[in-house]
Every structure is written in structure tokens, then in C-alpha cells.
């Protein structure tokens, strides 16, 4: 009886592993799209809050922030997590008048900044900034070589 039960349990585990391997790609895609939607929701909510609180008469103000990564073969999950962290850092720019934005300060806000994402550290490199009602940051990122690793 015990043998049968053990066999059943192992069979169940084997089946679950096979199913997991079969559905892996679809589950990964769903996970990535969920994370993307989370980032979008966060960004939209923050923008809405800012826009609601600011004077609606002002025309030349930053209304949205867009983050673009120019890294080839970049990991989409890492980029999403980095985007969330960067949006948090740049939220205060929303509502600022475009003429009054100090571009050097904006560059130094992100350039060479080290961000920790999922236990790994990444250094940002600012490539291009477009200061417009929809402010765009074109960035690159590299893994920080000083990151700690688990050792036995």
C-alpha cells in the first residue's frame, strides 16, 4: 500500500514537472505581461495624481515619463523592475515646467546611479534625455561587478 502511494506521489510530481516544462513559455509570457501591466498601472496612477494636484492652466509642464532601454538582448523582467525603480526616482519631475527643468541635474539624477533589483545591482548609463511634455530617458544598464554571491 505504501509503495503504491509513493509511486502515485512520484507519478504526480513527474506529471506536474512535465506539465510545467510544457507550459513554461506561456507562463513566462503571462508573468512578463502581468509585470508590464503593473508598471503601467503604477505609472498611470502616479501621473494621474500629479496632474490632478497641479494647476490645470499650465501648459508647458512635464506630463509623463517614458523609460527606454537600448541594451541588446536585455532581460525583460530586469528591465521592468529597473523601470519601476527609475519611475519612482523621476516622479517628482511630473508637473515641473519644461523651461525650468535643469538638464544637468536631470542627467545626474540617473547617470551612473546603482540600483538594486531582485538582489542584483545594476549601474545605469544615461544615453539620451528628451525634455518635453512626455519626457523620455534612453538608458543603458550594466551589472555591478561588486555584487555579492551566495557561498557555502
Amino acid at each position: 500500500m505504501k509503495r503504491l502511494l509513493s509511486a502515485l506521489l512520484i507519478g504526480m510530481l513527474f506529471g506536474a514537472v512535465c506539465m510545467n516544462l510544457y507550459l513554461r513559455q506561456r507562463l513566462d509570457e503571462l508573468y512578463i505581461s502581468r509585470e508590464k501591466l503593473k508598471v503601467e498601472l503604477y505609472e498611470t496612477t502616479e501621473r494621474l495624481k500629479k496632474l490632478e494636484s497641479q494647476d490645470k492652466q499650465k501648459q508647458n509642464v512635464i506630463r509623463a515619463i517614458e523609460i527606454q532601454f537600448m541594451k541588446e538582448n536585455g532581460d525583460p523582467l530586469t528591465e521592468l523592475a529597473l523601470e519601476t525603480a527609475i519611475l519612482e526616482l523621476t516622479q517628482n519631475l511630473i508637473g515641473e515646467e519644461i523651461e525650468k527643468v535643469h538638464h544637468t541635474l536631470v542627467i545626474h539624477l540617473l547617470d551612473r546611479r546603482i540600483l538594486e533589483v531582485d538582489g542584483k545591482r545594476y549601474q545605469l548609463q544615461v544615453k539620451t534625455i528628451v525634455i518635453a511634455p512626455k519626457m523620455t530617458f534612453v538608458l543603458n544598464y550594466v551589472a555591478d561587478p561588486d555584487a555579492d554571491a551566495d557561498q557555502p
Partner: protein
Amino acid sequence: MAKLLDTLTLNAFISFGVIIGGTLIGSLGAVFTGQAPGYSMVELAGKLKIWALVAALGGTFDTLRAIEAGFLGLKLNTVIKQLLLIFASFLGAHGGYLLILQLAGGRIR
């Protein structure tokens, strides 16, 4: 010699099994917690590699002590044997890691 070969084979397969089993069953856990299974597989395989080595050797301290004793006692045979054991375990672990990497789509996170 034959006994050493047996131990080397056993170590390689143990570390291989630790990686394959740990990763495949571990990724089931990722599914239950709402994480991406493919990404978790690659991440787990990378994290488990060093532990698979340790598990196959049966703890690092005995091996290190044997190497130390071999060096101090000038018993080169013991030192080479322990290094071969480590190498075999690493080979098994890395083989398992590469297999998982291919299963997960061949990307390194």
C-alpha cells in the same frame, strides 16, 4: 583505481541529480507562488550549482581537510584524488546546469 572511478562517477551523477531535481521541482514551487517558471529554473540552477558540488562531496570541510593533510604530509595521491572528486562533481553540476539552460530556452539571466 576502479573504486576511485566509481566514486568519481557517483559524485558526478549526484551533483547532476541535485541540479536537475532541485531545479525541476523548485520551479513547481515558483508556479504555485505566481512566478515565472522558466526564469526561476535558470536562476535556481545557477544558485544550486555550488551546493550540488558540496552535496556530492559530502560537505566541503572533509575534502578541504584531506587536501590539507595531503599537502602537509606530502601525500600527493590524496590531494590529486580530492581534486579529481571536486572536478567530477563540478562536471556533473555544470552538465545539469547546461541542460536546464537549454530546457529554459538557452538564456542566462
